């Protein structure tokens, strides 16, 4: 491919318009992702997206790359098999917060630990959009959802902290408001060898927003804008202030060898 690729080369145009709700953050992530792939100039047929089940899990239907639209929560496990079978591929696991950290939490931490060369993109909308807005493992404590009408009794995960503790090489957080940053972080994540995660805080105005005083996408983006701080700024905050903000930016960047590199090294002598 000598011609410069553009974002729309990664879109399945026949499938448009998108089926997501008005103002849903998913489309914004899809835009940033396709822009990032184009800028990296990776031909669509060298890209495989693995998706789970959920609103964001529908992303594969809008993409022209290879796809594995598997079962709920298992995108990283499919991705692992794909990457190990053909290491030349750019393998992206596109997951909702439910996919990644609720039903799929075990694959999330173990794939991060194993450091398989996969890029995980988690659209964190703090609930299960697809099934009608129930709480997920990232719903903040006391927030209202379809199945926590009196407020959620559990705290939500800090997905990035989890990935870090599990051993991911690259961890970053962005939001649907910070679109330029998001694209850059996705590019870095794809380029990084080993397991990388970009968590995107993404509006679900239809459920999470509506139940929690932010009925429109505009409300939600304003919220994201307000709570976001850079890692540098974060350092300067008091513990109390820290509780109220969300760090956005690159959080972990290390270079542990990825699974296949170690595997090849250890088995090099075996013949």
């Amino acid at each position: 491919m000598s011609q410069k690729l553009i974002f729309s080369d990664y879109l399945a145009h026949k499938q448009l318009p998108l089926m997501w709700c008005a103002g849903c953050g998913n489309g914004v992530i899809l835009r940033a992702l396709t822009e990032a792939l184009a800028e990296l100039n990776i031909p669509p047929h060298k890209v495989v997206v693995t998706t789970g089940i959920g609103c964001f899990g529908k992303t594969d239907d809008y993409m022209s790359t290879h796809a594995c639209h598997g079962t709920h929560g298992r995108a990283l496990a499919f991705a692992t098999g794909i990457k190990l079978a053909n290491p030349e591929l750019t393998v992206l696991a596109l997951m909702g917060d439910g996919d990644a950290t609720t039903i799929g939490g075990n694959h999330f931490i173990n794939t991060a630990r194993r450091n398989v060369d996969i890029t995980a993109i988690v659209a964190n909308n703090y609930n299960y959009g697809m099934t009608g807005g129930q709480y997920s493992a990232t719903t903040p404590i006391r927030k209202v959802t379809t199945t926590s009408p009196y407020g959620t009794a559990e705290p939500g995960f800090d997905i990035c902290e989890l990935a870090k503790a599990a051993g991911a090489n690259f961890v970053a957080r962005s939001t649907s408001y910070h679109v330029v940053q998001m694209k850059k972080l996705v590019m870095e994540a794809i380029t990084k060898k080993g397991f990388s995660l970009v968590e995107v805080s993404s509006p679900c105005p239809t459920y999470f927003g509506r139940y929690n005083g932010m009925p429109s996408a505009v409300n939600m983006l304003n919220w994201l804008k307000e709570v976001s701080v850079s890692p540098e700024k974060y350092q300067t905050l008091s513990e109390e202030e820290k509780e109220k903000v969300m760090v956005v930016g690159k959080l972990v960047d290390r270079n542990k060898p990825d699974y296949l590199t170690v595997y090849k090294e250890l088995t090099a002598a075996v013949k």
Partner: protein
Amino acid sequence: MGEKEKVVAININYDYCKRCGICIAFCNREVFTTDEFERPVVDNLDRCVNCKLCVLRCPDFAIRLEVSASA
């Protein structure tokens, strides 16, 4: 690139647009306004600085900038 070019038109694909209001609310230059169906319409093309944020923030791939090189 980007800011060097001039935006000669902003096309909104109303088949894709879902009237979320994001482009309207977050264009720092207040380029958009709405019609009676709450659809975005370009009101102040001249103010547009080609920052492309509306394009990137539109959840529905509905906005396209038409640019002409001004260099």
